[in-house]
């Protein structure tokens, strides 16, 4: 069922989205290589989430184009959706269903057969250590566990590209650290990860990143390259320098 991965996992060209007169995403162009962990940074309202929603087919671009896993997001949105996984900043499992029921539901939605769902589901439960709680309602699990579960469920159908929209919002530093280990493990299997965050320390973990300001890409490259381009010692400093002009304006 898995098609060979394209070398370029995500390719956005002049991707733009306007809401009325407000331009949320302004002609952004970037590409992500297969197996990369790619960070989308920016303040709240900078356009990260809007950009991601266009890539996963939840929002139509006003202009410009993008391909994900080699397929055009507008022309072949069903094909794209089949090849991607998504975890949103809001908790995205059903909390009145049990761990197993959530796994079965999402496996089914992606067209996996019962046997595969059971096999991968068991492996998943084992991996994150939820065996004792597999029949518990999700709402009874601690937040950190729920997020790990949501992450794993998003990977159940072995997507080529994984989109994470502020996956670590509201969890403690230790859990965040564990979460990033999961992200690395995933990238090591060849899955491309695009992650939005506003935690600048997390951005250091990314292979490459872009910083969005007012809907446009203000800086792009590896964390080291971005820092040296701005002559800054930390991404914090880069970020402040990029956002300060509009504060005074």
């Amino acid at each position, binding site marked *: 069922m898995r098609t060979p991965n394209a070398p370029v996992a995500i390719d956005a060209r002049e991707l733009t989205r306007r809401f009325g007169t407000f331009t949320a995403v302004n002609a952004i162009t970037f590409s992500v290589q297969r197996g990369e962990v790619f960070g989308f940074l920016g303040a709240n309202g900078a356009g990260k989430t809007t950009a991601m929603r266009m890539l996963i087919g*939840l929002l139509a671009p006003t202009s410009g184009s993008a391909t994900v896993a080699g397929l055009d997001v507008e022309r072949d949105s*069903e094909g794209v959706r089949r090849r991607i996984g998504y975890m949103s900043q809001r908790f*995205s499992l059903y909390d009145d*269903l049990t761990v197993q029921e959530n796994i079965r539901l999402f496996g089914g*939605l992606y*067209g996996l057969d019962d046997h595969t769902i059971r096999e991968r589901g068991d492996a998943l439960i084992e991996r994150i250590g939820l065996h004792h709680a597999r029949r518990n309602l999700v709402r009874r699990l601690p937040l950190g566990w729920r997020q790990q579960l949501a992450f794993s469920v998003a990977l159940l159908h072995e997507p080529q590209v994984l989109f994470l929209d502020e996956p670590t919002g509201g969890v403690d530093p230790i859990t965040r650290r564990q979460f990033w280990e999961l992200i690395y493990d995933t990238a090591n299997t060849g899955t491309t990860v695009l992650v939005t965050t506003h935690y600048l320390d997390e951005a250091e973990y990314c292979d490459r990143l872009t910083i969005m300001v007012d809907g446009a890409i203000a800086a792009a490259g590896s964390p080291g390259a971005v820092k040296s381009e701005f002559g800054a010692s930390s991404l914090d400093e880069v970020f402040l320098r990029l956002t300060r002009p509009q504060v005074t304006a």
Partner: protein
Amino acid sequence: MGRRWAALRGLVVKESRHVLRDRQTLVILLLMPLVQVLLYGYAIRTDVSGIRTVIVDPTPDIATRSLLARFEASDRYDVREVVPTDFAIERGFASGALRQAIVLPTDVERRLGRGEPISVLIVTDGSDPNAGSAMRSYAEAILRRWYSEASTNTLGGARGIRVESRMRYNPTLESANLFVPGLIALVVTIVSAMMTAIAITRETEMGTMEMLLVSPLRPSAIVLGKVLPYAALGLLNVFIVLSAAAAVFHVPVRGSLALLLAECLLYVFTTLAIGIVISTAARTQRTAMLMALGGLLLPTIMLSGFIFPIASMPTPLRVFSNIVPARWFLVIVRGIMLKGAGLGTLWQETLVLLGLTTALLAVGIRRLSVRLD
């Protein structure tokens, strides 16, 4: 294809679990129709027992005494007086001391003996249409039963009794304005429209809708998977109302039960479609609920002919009532249940309902996918 179905099945199972796990709501939804039947049956129609009646009998004899005995034996009737002329009954009606008068002809016994037809006039206070129509049918039933026995006792063949009826204060009273059809509409509206609207809005509010939307499922499949369990729940409630009404109040289904259920299913889909439309307009569950209550339940109760006859509405409201689906559904259900009507007479209303449903579904799915877009 098989996988699509499996995915849809998974979605239906999941939605059913939502319904079944929310015990509190489920109990309310299942008890509600029962409580409503009892409430409307007992509380809202209290006036139809203890009917204060006068019998106008110019020439009392054995036959009229047996009629009087029948009225007195019925616990619905409170026979105040037997009077020789209808001279004073007008005042009784005006003051509310009287709610019904039975005006008999002269020489009833002799006419029965000769096999002559007799005509009886029933005068009923129609100021409350529901009670008025009920009182009229009670009196008519007693008269006909009395006549069939009295006449066969004397002659054998029933030559006929002509029962004339006059309504005081409300001559255009609808003939059989029973509450069960309206109740079906009400309950189905609450369950299907309100619950659908809330269930869909809950997913958007919780963020889980996005998870469904980024899956390969099409929006139409998502909608279908979400609404099917509520369709089942809506139909279950139809059964509860019908059984309770039959068991407690002996409300008949004179027409085809299959047709009745088919029409109910159609109406379930109408209300599901309304629920979808509401869910596209409401951002939160609370808004969805208020919209369903104010924008849907009120018209269903007020403008469908359930309580207030459409004929007596001011023109703007009467015109507006045409787009209230319950208005058409009520005509259909009343027709089938009370008049034994078939599709031959109800096809126009059915077509209107079908049209409204299609339009609402089209708008709902369109708006939903635009909003999801």
